[in-house]
């Protein structure tokens, strides 16, 4: 109920209309207070929904891969043969294919992404040319992976094939090397834009301090900018890796899709994601399906760990 004390002091001694108006206002305020509580609760529920969603994903994956875990045990991960027809399931070829293609892609992309980061962050933060570069790099990330796959298949694979024949490798074209190239392009923007924003965060007064001591531009980059941002750059690379590991469509389209252990980086192969994409709808036996889901579970866990580590590093960096 509205009491006199809820009214502004100067109203208490004024006209009845003013008091009435003030009381009305006070009653409004009480209604507001109730709405406020409801609103706060709704927000918390939304927070809870997200948590439940993630737990649900984890639980689903675990439950669905239980048959395979029970049937195949841990050695599933390093068994080398995958032959659903014979009911033999070994994940090693896919793990190896995933690791090879992702790390190769990472190694190819790092110089480019760091160069972009330094160019945009340090040399030319403003102007139309850097703006163009920045937007282009960001658009690289926007292109759907299926288009990369298609383009890779139609354009890149023939090129790789002729490259392979020129160095005397079996000219397959499709394979781990092609998928690494595609992946490398796809992940440049992640490390680059993160690196750029990290370099932007380097306080200009630190750089000025170094210039003030007579340093050259490169010395400022080497001694101030890079040390300051190294953890951020590392996080960017980790996040790129996470992307590369989980990337499905582009890889599926150019990796060749064989379940054999890749003999070299030019050989065809399969990654965990691509094998799921290829075989999930064909998996007719429970263990087969479950083995695929177990691959999904491994992929899930690996990418989650890598992403969380990357995020932690970024958080610590930006909060400093």
């Amino acid at each position, binding site marked *: 109920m509205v009491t006199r004390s809820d009214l502004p002091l100067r109203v208490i001694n004024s006209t009845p209309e003013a008091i009435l108006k003030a009381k009305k206002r006070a009653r409004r305020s009480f209604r*507001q207070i109730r709405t406020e509580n409801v609103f706060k609760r709704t*927000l918390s529920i*939304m927070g809870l929904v997200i948590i439940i969603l993630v737990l649900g994903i984890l639980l689903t994956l675990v439950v669905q891969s239980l048959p395979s875990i029970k049937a195949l045990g841990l050695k599933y991960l390093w068994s080398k043969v995958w032959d659903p027809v014979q009911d033999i399931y070994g994940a090693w070829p896919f793990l190896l294919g995933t690791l090879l293609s992702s790390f190769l892609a990472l190694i190819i992309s790092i110089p480019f992404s760091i160069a972009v980061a330094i160019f*945009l962050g340090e040399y030319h933060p403003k102007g139309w040319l850097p703006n163009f570069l920045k937007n282009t790099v960001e658009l690289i990330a926007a292109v759907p992976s299926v288009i990369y796959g298609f383009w890779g298949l139609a354009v890149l694979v023939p090129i790789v094939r002729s490259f392979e024949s020129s160095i005397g490798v079996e000219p397959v074209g499709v394979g781990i090397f092609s998928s690494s190239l595609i992946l490398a392009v796809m992940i440049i923007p992640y490390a680059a834009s993160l690196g750029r924003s990290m370099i932007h965060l380097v306080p200009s007064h630190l750089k000025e301090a170094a210039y003030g001591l007579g340093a050259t531009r490169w010395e400022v980059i080497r001694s101030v900018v890079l040390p300051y941002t190294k953890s951020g750059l590392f996080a960017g690379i980790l996040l790129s890796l996470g992307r590369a590991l*989980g990337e499905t469509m582009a890889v599926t389209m150019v990796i060749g899709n064989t379940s054999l252990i890749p003999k070299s980086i030019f050989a065809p192969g399969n990654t965990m994601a691509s094998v799921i994409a290829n075989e999930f709808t064909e998996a007719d036996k429970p263990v087969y399906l479950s083995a695929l889901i177990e691959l999904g579970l491994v992929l899930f866990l690996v990418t989650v760990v890598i992403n969380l580590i990357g995020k932690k590093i970024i958080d610590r960096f930006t909060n400093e």
Partner: protein
Amino acid sequence: MQPSHVKYRLGKSYGFQILTYILAFACVVPLIAILFFIIKAGVTKINWHFLVNIPKPVGETGGGIANALVGSILIILVASVIAIPIGIMAGVYLSENRKSRLAYWCRLSTDILQGVPSIVIGIVAYFWLVKPFGKFSALSGSAALAIMMLPIVIRSTEETLKLLPDSLKEAALALGMPFHRVIFKVIIPVGVSGILSGVMLSIARITGETAPLLFTAFGNPYLSTKLTQPMQSLPLLIFNYATSPYNEWHDLAWGASLILLVWVLFLNIFTKIVTRKWKVQL
């Protein structure tokens, strides 16, 4: 210290600068190449007929991608309707409760969700919405895409609101405003451009997603608008037709790729322009 020493240091500095320039601009090449090829291969395929017809069976030339266009739009719409309100509210929750335990787990969950490979989301959606009902459906595809949208919307909302100075909220609270009004009348309007950019980016992202749809919306050679039925979508169509051995289908895939690419790039660029125009000064 001799001048020659300085000259050497300056030379090193310039050398490094030039190397950086070269490497940085090398990154432009792939995108140009992709754009060039897709446009070259796709632009001749696109005409009115292409947009309003459904694909012809193998062997027949002509045909279009109307089913994929309609399907993509429907699936994305439904996904947005699910994800945007939840995402924004969760984002607001996170930005308002930086320290609470629930917020910690929620934030962690969002981070996890953001890193989950899309194929895994597809698997999960399959078990949640396809297997229990015994059939592939557009709705399950929407749900999978909605899950993919959520972390982007949540994060961009939270980050935008976190960027708003505390003083803004305090100014409103000090005027005796109740919490929900502070959020709706001050915080969200000021942060609208950031939130909006997150929403648009998330839409751009799911437009090109294929993997989660493989086992959910599945694809459909015919035009369907029933959410409970399998439905075609652009990326699915490109994947299926691109990996097929038929040249006519390849042509369809090129055309579809161009449309998808233009749409996605348009969304990205539009977002950038719009958010720049609406950029509020803080």
